[in-house]
């Protein structure tokens, strides 16, 4: 384990840039900490934190200048690995007798993900299962995925809607990264415990002016992560959830939540594991060129389950919310052998109606009919 003093962190980012990576990390924009292009540590949200609760997010000043003193931002890394809109192919025709399919090609960019939290590492692993681990491989995802460098950060504070501890997905990063950092803040001094889990990670750390961390520093790092684990904003009792949900399809709580649910789809858009898409066909005016695009979709739309003649299978908001929650916490287990939720809390924070997945699940359990 190394200890990086402040300038070395800049060198770490600089080193990644030198190795050809575009840096994407947390930065303050439009009243939130978002993941966007950064150039150096100066673009990180120094001294900022976030206050998160159901349907509410506010940026707040910290009384120190910590660079990672906040929880996860509105949008996840999904945006970069599984972008909101992807062109699949172009088709050309000359009359009816000819159809040319031209695959769209994309040069996957080397990107360094800076400041990935443990829950999001788990989320990326879940996306991997869907796009790489099933019967078919999404080649574009694979290419993008293969070119990232992950700088994880162990969480120093828990957000008001975090529940990774319940989901077993944090707050300590245990896999899926090249380098992991723990931010130590003492007497106005910042230092970063740094550990590598890959060769290129180790190579990067070696190139920095960093010393070995002292056992006290390592212990301090552990304490910080433990403190975070003890201060989760939310919790979720996961015991027997898939069975509970399978048995709760007629639960009155679904009516109750449907009365509040806006079916706006925000939860699915911000969720780091929600992967659903639709296809849009576009043609040019002459009708000789067409394009197929894959775009993020949401199970909260009526079109999502549209069947000819019958309209949407899930025509009521109740059935749409039920599908979403049941998939996240229940049926994902039968499909992929694990939960679909990593406890990041985004769906809670970014729901304009403040609907809380942990509260809904608890209600289903407690008010079991």
């Amino acid at each position: 384990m190394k200890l990086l003093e402040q300038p070395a962190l800049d060198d770490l980012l600089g080193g990644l840039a030198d190795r050809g990576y575009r840096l994407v990390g947390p930065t303050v924009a439009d009243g939130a900490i978002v993941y966007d292009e950064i150039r150096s540590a100066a673009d990180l949200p120094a001294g900022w934190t976030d206050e998160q609760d159901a349907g509410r997010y506010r940026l707040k000043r910290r009384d120190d200048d910590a660079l990672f003193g906040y929880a996860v931002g509105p949008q996840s890394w999904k945006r970069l690995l599984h972008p909101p809109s992807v062109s699949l192919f172009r088709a050309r025709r000359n009359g009816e007798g000819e159809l040319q399919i031209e695959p769209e090609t994309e040069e996957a960019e080397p990107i360094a993900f800076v400041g990935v939290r443990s829950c999001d590492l788990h989320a990326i692993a879940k996306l991997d299962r869907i796009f790489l681990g099933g019967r078919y491989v999404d080649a574009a995802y694979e290419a993008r995925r293969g070119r990232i460098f992950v700088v994880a950060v162990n969480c120093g504070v828990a957000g008001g809607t975090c529940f990774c501890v319940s989901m077993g997905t944090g707050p300590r990063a245990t896999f899926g990264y090249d380098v992991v950092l723990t931010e130590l803040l003492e007497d106005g001094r910042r230092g970063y415990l740094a550990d590598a889990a890959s060769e290129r990670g180790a190579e990067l750390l070696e190139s920095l002016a960093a010393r070995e961390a002292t056992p006290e520093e390592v212990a301090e790092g552990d304490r910080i992560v433990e403190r975070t684990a003890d201060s989760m904003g939310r919790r979720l009792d996961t015991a027997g959830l898939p069975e509970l949900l399978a048995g709760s399809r007629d639960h009155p709580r679904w009516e109750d939540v449907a009365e509040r649910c806006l079916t706006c789809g925000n939860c699915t858009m911000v969720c780091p594991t929600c992967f659903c898409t639709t296809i849009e066909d576009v043609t040019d005016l002459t009708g000789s060129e067409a394009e197929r695009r894959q775009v993020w979709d949401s199970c909260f739309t009526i079109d999502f389950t549209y069947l000819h003649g019958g309209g949407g299978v899930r025509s009521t908001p109740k059935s749409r919310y039920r599908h979403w929650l049941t998939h996240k916490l229940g049926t994902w287990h039968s499909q992929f052998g694990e939960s679909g939720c990593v406890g990041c809390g985004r769906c809670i924070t970014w729901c304009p109606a403040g609907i809380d997945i942990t509260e809904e699940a608890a209600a289903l359990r407690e008010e079991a009919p």
Partner: protein
Amino acid sequence: MAARRKKLAVWKFASCDGCQLSLLDCEDELLALAGELEISHFLEASSAVAPGPYDLSLVEGSITTPEDAERIQRVRRASKKLVTIGACATAGGIQALRNFADVEAFTSVVYATPQYISTLETSTPISAHVPVDFELHGCPVNKHQLLEVLNAFLNDRRPAIPGYSVCIECKRRGNVCVMVAHGTPCLGPVTHAGCGALCPAYHRGCFGCFGPMESPNTVSLTREWLKLGAGERDVRRAFRTFNANAEPFKTAADG
């Protein structure tokens, strides 16, 4: 491919002209469009008028006079497909605010001699008068969506015009939610997508210019607005603007 160019007609009823202007705003596509389609009736662009029947009629504006109520019947009869464009034609537009007030009083506010004005008491959408094949939302319509509708009708496919919320576009665009992060009341969750989540991208709340989405829960959104400190009057004003006569918004404004 069709040997004959399909005939397009553009009609105007009570409106601001903005939606038909959207067609002229397709600067890059306009000439190609004029090549692919026979623009048979489009007074804003040309005084040449070819007789119907038209393959596709785009109708802008709402019905506010007895003459227009008759004219729309003739337009429908002359059109194989009829697509309404914009909030006026699909929901009655902002002039439907008269539906909630006394027209005579309105007339006398604006015009010195109200008896010269012939007008109905209501502003109603085209669909209240004739069958409509497709309704394109927006005040004004989005020109990319307008092109998509033209394209889809030319190619006989379903237009890719989703009925879900502005929020979905908002998140795809990567905006930070103004409602959650700024406490700004936003109509995005109950508003039909199509604009690309423009207002939140400009740090303001959506004001509903695309009308209600497919399953709008205005009751729940109203509750959230009140929690953010909006007054009931603000809620009523918000729902009672460009799509005031669209049923879900009408109900929401009535509280």
